[in-house]
């Protein structure tokens, strides 16, 4: 049986997801990082990007994370983000509209946010 790690994905105002997983892939400022059970204790800064969690029952959970931290110790992984959304919570059409508007207004931050959301939604 594959070893498991416990994952907590928390946003500033709520707990988004928690459960057991076999692999978590997240994007830190120095590149993508994959954490499997038994990884060395780690504390890293996250970039905006999709986070992929492979759950222990074989499923995949994708979330759009906008900045934050990842910390791993004692087989417990915490993903802290100011804003985090699961891919099934993302309204693709609305995000596409947001992306267009952000592009038109030249709002780089909003454009990046919408882009991350769309990528997370596409990966589900």
């Amino acid at each position, binding site marked *: 049986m594959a070893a498991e790690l416990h994952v*907590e994905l928390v946003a500033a105002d*709520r707990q988004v997801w928690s459960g057991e997983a076999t692999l978590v892939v997240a994007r830190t400022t120095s590149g993508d990082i994959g954490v499997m059970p038994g990884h060395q204790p780690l*504390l890293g*800064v996250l970039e905006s990007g999709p986070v992929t969690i492979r759950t222990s029952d074989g499923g995949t959970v994708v979330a759009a994370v906008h900045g934050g*931290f990842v*910390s791993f*110790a004692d087989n417990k992984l915490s993903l802290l983000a*100011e804003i985090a959304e699961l891919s099934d919570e993302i309204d693709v059409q609305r995000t596409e509209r947001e992306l267009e508007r952000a592009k038109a207004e030249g709002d780089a931050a909003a454009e990046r946010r919408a882009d991350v959301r769309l990528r997370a939604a596409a990966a589900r």
Partner: protein
Amino acid sequence: MGAQLRVYKRRIRSVSATKKITKAMEMIAASRVVKAQRKVAASTPYATELTRAVTAVGTGSNTRHPLTTEAENPTRAAVLLLTSDRGLAGAFNSNAIKAAEQLTERLEREGKQVDAYIVGRRGVAHYNFRERKVAESWTGFTDEPTYADAKTVAAPLIEAIEKDTAAGGVDELHIVYTEFVSMMTQSALDARLLPLRLDEVAEETGSEGEILPLYDFEPSAEDVLDALLPRYVESRIYNALLQSAASKHAATRRAMKSATDNAGELINTLSRLANAARQAEITQEISEIVGGASALADATAGSDR
């Protein structure tokens, strides 16, 4: 109806209208406390995880960061005071303001210049009325603060603490807010946010004495701390805003409950007075009739003779 009775009746009517309003406000506040409490609980996982991470970096590395090291002789301090936009909450705002003034006095005694940052219309009005200088103020979100609000409040404070003291920056950051202890107890308290005291932080999370693992920092301990500390300040301010909101609603509920009770008592007293007045009126009417009748009887008896 006599004049006095009419006056009583009118007062009873006005007091019962007031009672209805305070009763409604009490119930609204009661439902909001529950909502605010739930928000405090929902923000807790993020805050505890963040605090753990801060402790881990702070103790696990020898990094010297401006936000964790104490200035040798601090000369300027920022005080962030959290009040509410609306009153009708008993001593809620005056307690918070009093706590802020005590803290300011203490800091000034220590020879520090104090910059005031204020959240909530009540606090702003208090400072403006006394013509004191306010570095920055925010209003309009104290009933239901969001994380974005906490970020807007935190931004200038973090900027000020990162600046050199000579260039108008501050050395210390204090926060005064009302802690939500329970439905009946809320206490105004002050806390020093920055520079960070790691032993205190560890105590708060209950992780004192717990041996933290040797973390691998990605990309480096300095960068992690750089990114972590502003988030930590934001999350602490967010938590304080939520607690203040919950406390304010609890204080409003209590104030409105006692207002409702007082109105009920006043209605009782006034109805008794009104009853007495009505009785007195009736008694007087009877004695007038009796007196009139006997006077009439005396007059007729006299004319008969």
